[in-house]
Structure formats: structure tokens, C-alpha cells
């Protein structure tokens, strides 16, 4: 493993990351054994449903996990240095400077009582010893770069005077202020409607490609990630269940959960044969497991049509698929989706597994 790092140090290498929340009800393994490598200028789509641990993975990398949460294991190698071994001051020096984060709700991430210029100047001066005027100029430049019309006027505005799309542009401009090597975007387009979402997406794509910035795009929306990412990691109940390139994961999903996720995607183009557009969307039967009572084996087994006795022990992130060195699934029964998803979904999940869930 360490031999190939020497010639090209990846921007970020996450090894067996473990983040747990110590609540009164018990210990929640919110992020469990998450590993991935992100090269310079690469875009990773981190996909999963609510509570799958994708956001907490992002927060863990940022070092923003708050009590009762704690990063308890693994390594977070940023350009080869383990961030978990750094002092709080060192980590703060990376935050916003080398690693930036963009949050979901642009309404909430800007301070409502401070003008945009106040907030942006503060962000500049957090990492650079520059005067007020120079910091303000840099802020105006950053706004212009993200396609903000008349940035000088916008600087004087309060957040509530800007629309959702403009506020998210401000947030992106703040993230780009110091030309970071890595941006973690936590569902930044979820709160926006589709036309603005498309604008923001193409803007991000342009900016990231121009600077060679690595990007982790956290989303529950496969269709957003499909057009943006180089690789996709699918998370389920705190673990990565499938990891590969966009084409591998979307065209040839191996894990039954990924297949279910893709199957439940509404699409403007899809027509079921002979049914027109009104075909019913498929859903994955059952519920995500309670993190307090995680089954010792595969977390998806209770909802899985393929589950068998082996699934009662934890599957490893398996060997890569033949001919696809980066495509792995955490499943004992990987394989392409059955010809008719419809029938497989109607089959009730089996026996002993069901009782545990």
C-alpha cells in the first residue's frame, strides 16, 4: 500500500475511519471502517440516504465532529500527513485554508446579522495577514469568480437580501477564497431548486477543474453525482457498501443496495415497457437498521433478497471485480441486478434476518 504513495501522494487518503456518537442510549457507530483515496483534482461522490453517515464522514475529515461524537479510529492522511495526529491549531490552520467545506443550507450558513463583506473579510483574515482593504478586494474577486453579478454591491448586502442561489454562491466563494486543495460539499444544492442547482453544479465543475481541486460531493441524489463525480462511494448504515467509478457503479452496480437505490430513482426518460411514464417507482423494502442495534453481519441483509446464512457475519469490502480494479462491493453475493427487479422486490426478505430487524 505505502509503496505507491511515494511517487504520487494523493490529496486525501482515508483509512478505516471510525466515528462514534456516545449518546445516553448507547454508542452509535455512525461511521464505521470507511476508507477511500482521493487523488488531486478528482471528484468523489459520497452517496447514501439520510443517516448513512455520509455527512459525518465529511465532518470527520474537517475535524468538526462535536460531542457526543468522536473520531475514534483510523487515519486521515491529507497530502500524506495524518490529520488525526495534528494539534487543534494545526487543524484549524488547514480548515478553510487547504480544506474548505460548503454546507447544505445557504440560509443557515451565513451569519444573519453580519454583512457579506464582514464575513468574507473575516474568512480571508483567518489565514492571511492582510489589511482590511486588501481582504475586501480579494472577497470581491472571489464573488466575481463564482459568477456573482456586481460583486461590490453584493458585498454590502446582508444575507437576507440575497436569494438562495446567490447565498450559495457566496458560500462557494468563501470556500474558494484561499484556493483549497480539497473541498467537501455537503449537499450544497439540495436546498436549491433545479435550475439554480444546475447553475451551481456547472459553476463548481468549472472552478474545481480549473484549479485541480479535489472535491468530495456528499449527496443523496445519484443524478447530481452522476454528472459531476469521477468516482462514487455508496454508504449504508455507516459503511461504504460499494465503491467504483461513476460508470462502474451506475451502469453495473454489484451491491443489492446500490441496485435498489438506482431502481428507486425517478427519471424523466424511463418508461416501463408498455406502461408509459406512469410506471410505479420501486422502493427498497424495509427500513435502515437502528444504529443502536446493528446486526453483527451485513447491515443490509434484513432487506436483501439475496441474503443467506453467510450474511450473518460482516462482509469485507470485497476483491475488485474482474477487469475493474477499483470496483468493490461489501457483499457476499455481489453481481449484476436480476433481470426483473420488480419480482425480486416483491419477494419478502427472508426468514431469520427479518426477525432481527
Amino acid at each position, binding site marked *: 500500500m505505502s509503496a505507491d504513495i511515494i511517487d504520487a501522494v494523493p490529496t486525501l487518503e482515508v483509512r478505516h475511519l471510525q466515528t462514534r456518537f456516545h449518546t445516553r442510549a448507547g454508542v452509535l457507530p455512525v461511521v464505521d471502517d470507511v476508507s477511500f483515496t482521493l487523488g488531486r483534482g478528482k471528484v468523489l461522490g459520497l452517496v447514501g440516504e439520510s443517516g448513512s453517515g455520509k455527512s459525518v464522514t465529511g465532518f470527520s475529515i*474537517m475535524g*468538526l465532529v462535536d460531542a457526543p461524537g468522536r473520531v475514534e479510529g483510523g487515519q486521515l492522511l491529507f497530502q500524506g500527513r495524518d490529520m488525526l495526529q495534528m494539534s487543534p491549531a494545526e487543524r*484549524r*490552520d*488547514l*480548515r*478553510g*485554508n487547504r480544506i*474548505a*467545506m460548503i*454546507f447544505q*443550507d445557504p*440560509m*443557515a*450558513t*451565513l*451569519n*444573519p*446579522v*453580519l*454583512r457579506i463583506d464582514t464575513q468574507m473579510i*473575516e*474568512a480571508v483574515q*483567518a*489565514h492571511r495577514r492582510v489589511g482590511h482593504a486588501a481582504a475586501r478586494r480579494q472577497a470581491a474577486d472571489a464573488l466575481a469568480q463564482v459568477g456573482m*453579478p*456586481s460583486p461590490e*454591491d*453584493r458585498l*454590502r*448586502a*446582508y444575507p*437576507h*437580501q*440575497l*436569494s*438562495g*442561489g*446567490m447565498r450559495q454562491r457566496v*458560500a462557494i466563494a*468563501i470556500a474558494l477564497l484561499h484556493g483549497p486543495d480539497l473541498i467537501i460539499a455537503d449537499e450544497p444544492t439540495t436546498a*436549491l*431548486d433545479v*435550475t*439554480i442547482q444546475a447553475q451551481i453544479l456547472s459553476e463548481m465543475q468549472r472552478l474545481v477543474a480549473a484549479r485541480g481541486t479535489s472535491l468530495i460531493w456528499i449527496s443523496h441524489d445519484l443524478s447530481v453525482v452522476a454528472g459531476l463525480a469521477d468516482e462514487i462511494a455508496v454508504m449504508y448504515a455507516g459503511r461504504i457498501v460499494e465503491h467504483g467509478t461513476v460508470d462502474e457503479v451506475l451502469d453495473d452496480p454489484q451491491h443489492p443496495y446500490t441496485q435498489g437505490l438506482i431502481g428507486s430513482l425517478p427519471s424523466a426518460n424511463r418508461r416501463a415497457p408498455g406502461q408509459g411514464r406512469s410506471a410505479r417507482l420501486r422502493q427498497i423494502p424495509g427500513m435502515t437498521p437502528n444504529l443502536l442495534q446493528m446486526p453483527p453481519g451485513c447491515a443490509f441483509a434484513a432487506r436483501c433478497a439475496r441474503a443467506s446464512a453467510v450474511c450473518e457475519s460482516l462482509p469485507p469490502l470485497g476483491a475488485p471485480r474482474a477487469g475493474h480494479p477499483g470496483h468493490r462491493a461489501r457483499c457476499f453475493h455481489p453481481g449484476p441486478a436480476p433481470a426483473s427487479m420488480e419480482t425480486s422486490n416483491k419477494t419478502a426478505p427472508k426468514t431469520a434476518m427479518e426477525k432481527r430487524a
Partner: protein
Amino acid sequence: MSEATDVSAEGVQAARARRFDAHSIWWRVAADFLHSRVAVVGLALLAIVTIAALAAPWITPQNPYDLMQLDVLDARLKPGTASSAAGYTYWLGTDGQGRDLYSAIVYGLRISLLVGVGSAVMAAVLGTGVGLLAAYAGGKVDAALMRLVDLLLSFPTILMALMILAYVGKGVANVILTLVLLEWAYYARTARGQALVETRREYVEAARGQGIAPWRILTGHILPNCLPPLLVIGALQIARAITLEATLSFLGLGVPITEPSLGLLISNGYQYLLSNEYWISFFPGLALLITIVAINLVGDQLRDVLNPRLQQ
């Protein structure tokens, strides 16, 4: 404020932002404030009282603190009596030492406002600091500070004030010190509660994500969001401090007798009330009443304007 997100609405919002961009949130607060006629009256009264207190030497015929200007022969004259020697009229009468009551009231207002505003501002700074520290530090520091606050707030205020003043002695500075010690706890409790709420907000997370130092987040981001409720408490605490000072002076533990505040003037006239020389207590009392009511009217309106739940 509508959440506009489509392209055309973005343009509309842009135009609106341009129109408003010189207007801060405080402008909106000011506009809302002036909506209530009662509050405007209160503000006007407060302005008159404040200006009168500041301009005291120029608008009064007599310096009531200068014993050389007092004429004991003019003691306890009725309102409207002409001065025997100095050549002006005692429009509000004179007190037992022959002070012109109008002059004494205006000078007394000075002391009352100085004590009220001074103690409220100092208590606000101290209390807010302690509250923010408690909220930020959490754990044992928080628990210790908040139990201290509980302890302070559970004592009867007057009793505490009497105890402290009996120890440190009379004097304007000592009264202010006493009031600060008694009042900072109110600010501390509110500031802590507000800061705890704000700390959970996402903009704080975002600021941390930008690598901004913790104390800068506390003072630059959280504090401004905590200010509205503290401002309201501040306004009402000024009134409370003035009343307390008047009470303490009335009880003989406040300001020295040579520099009477409103409370001391009332106290001085108290003994003459039964002999029908009502004005010695009445006019200082009226001045105190007007001041307190004006401050409370302004404070109430501030609370309404700054309360997000009553807005929109």
C-alpha cells in the same frame, strides 16, 4: 422575506438588494420602533430628561451642590415664591436647606442617570462576558458560573445592596459598584442562554469550517446575534438601577447628602409631607416617575421590535 430561487426571482431580489443595501438591520429596527406612538412619546420624554440632565449648569438658576449659593432663610418656600436675594423665582419651591427644587431635580437627574446608565453598561459588559464564557466553556466552568448567578438572583436585591453598601460606604461610585454586582447576573443568564442557542446554529459550524479562531467566533459571530435580548434587558435594567439607587438613597445609604439624587430629595422632603409642604417630595418623585416610565416605554417597544417571534 420570501425565499426566491428561480432565475427571474434572483434578478428581482438583486434589484431589491441594491435598493436596500445601505440599510442595515438596525435601520429596520428603528423604523419598526417609530410605529408605536406611545414609544415615540417615551423616547421624546427620555430625550428631554437626558438633555436636561446633561445641560444642567446652563438651564438652572442655582448650583444646588454649592453651599455658598444656598440661602437657609429661603428654606421650604412654596412653588412660585420669589428668591429673597438672588432675584429668580423658585418655580417648584425650595427644600429644607433652601435649595431651589427645580435646580436640585435637574442636578439630581444627572446623578440618577449616571448611576442608572453607568451601572447598566458595566453590568452588561461583565454579565455578557461571563455568560458567553459559560456557554463557550461548558462543563464545570459553566456549572460553577451559573450556580453563582442563581445564588445572586435568589437573594433579595435590597438586602444585598444594603449589605454591600454598609461595607463599602456611601458615594456615587460605590452605589454604581453595588448595582453592577447585583445586576450582572441577569445579563449573564440571558447571554448564556442565547449563546447556547446560537452556538448550535449552522453559521457557527461554517465559521469553524473557515478556520476562524474560537474567540473570534464567540465575539464576532455569536455575540452580535445575542445582542437584541441583551439590549432590551439593558434598557429595563437602567430603569431598575435608577429605582434602586433612589430606594437606597431614600434609606440613607446611597449618595452623600451634599450631592442629592432624586431619591435623596424625596427622602429629605418626606418628613415635611405631613406638614403640607408636599412639593419637596412630590416634584422629585414626579421627575423620577417620568424618567422611569419613559425608559420602560422605550424598553418595552424595543422588546417588541427585537423579538423575532413577534416580527413579520
